[in-house]
């Protein structure tokens, strides 16, 4: 198991990925909610129409910037730690932070079932550190 400075560095790497990914996911989900169902838009306006609706949304652009930051944090993390630790830990912790942020910022109905899932994920992430 990781100890001391190595553990702190691992936590820092995972935290950087989680924070930037959460911001990116929330911004992009919010943008897609503004835009509407892409399948419906594609049926009416074609693929280019759907693409135009997405890329011209400013909230989507800001979300992409955060996801890019998350991507480079992931690359950095993968160059120092195992994929089987960084990958599941970062993405599953992002699930938990996304559930909290989606309830606060997007007004999503995060019911008991979804919160229970978040607890299972936390336990799973704790096990990944061993």
């Amino acid at each position, binding site marked *: 198991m990781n100890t001391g400075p190595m553990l702190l560095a691992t936590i820092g790497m995972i935290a950087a990925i989680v924070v930037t990914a959460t911001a990116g996911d*929330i911004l*992009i*989900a919010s943008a*897609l*909610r503004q*835009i*509407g*169902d*892409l*399948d*419906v*838009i594609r049926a*009416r*306006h074609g693929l280019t*129409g*759907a693409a*135009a*609706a*997405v890329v*011209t*949304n400013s909230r989507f652009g800001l979300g992409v910037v955060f996801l890019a930051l998350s*991507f480079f944090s*992931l*690359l*950095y993390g*993968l*160059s*120092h730690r*195992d*994929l*089987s*630790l960084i*990958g*599941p830990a970062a*993405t*599953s912790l992002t*699930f938990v932070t*996304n559930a909290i942020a*989606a*309830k606060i910022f*997007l*007004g*999503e109905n*995060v*019911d008991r*079932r*979804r919160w*229970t*899932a*978040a*607890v*299972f*994920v936390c*336990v*799973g*992430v*704790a*096990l*990944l550190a*061993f």
Partner: protein
Amino acid sequence: MTFRRYLVLAVVTLTASCGDTFLSRGMKSLGPVSLAHPAELIQAIFSPWVGAGIVLLIGFFASYLTALSFADLTYVLPATSLGYVIMTVLAKWWLHEHVSTWRWLGVLCITAGVGFVTRGPSRTEHPAALAKPPEAVQTSVEEAWR
């Protein structure tokens, strides 16, 4: 939820896990990157494995956007949780990483925990959104297209 929508979720799952595995394969072959030389991260993009991983992650992003346009964020993420298992299997059998029993239990716990979320509703219906006529969506798309 239609079959087509479940297919979109499957594509999200596969492209994300395979894309991350490709990135890991590429970054391991390049060696540790120092914070003192951040340009090495940019150079890494042009290595074959990292490049292939990025292509898969572009596919992931397109399918992820499609999924987010018809379902909640808190539905899409757990619904695609099988990717954790695929990623761990690939890390173990292809990248030959050591995956301890505890990590396997952790992956199983994550998957079990989030998997049953898919039984619930995929979308939170807001009163404002329900009241919004389809023409409003169409108009905003036409404005974007102009």
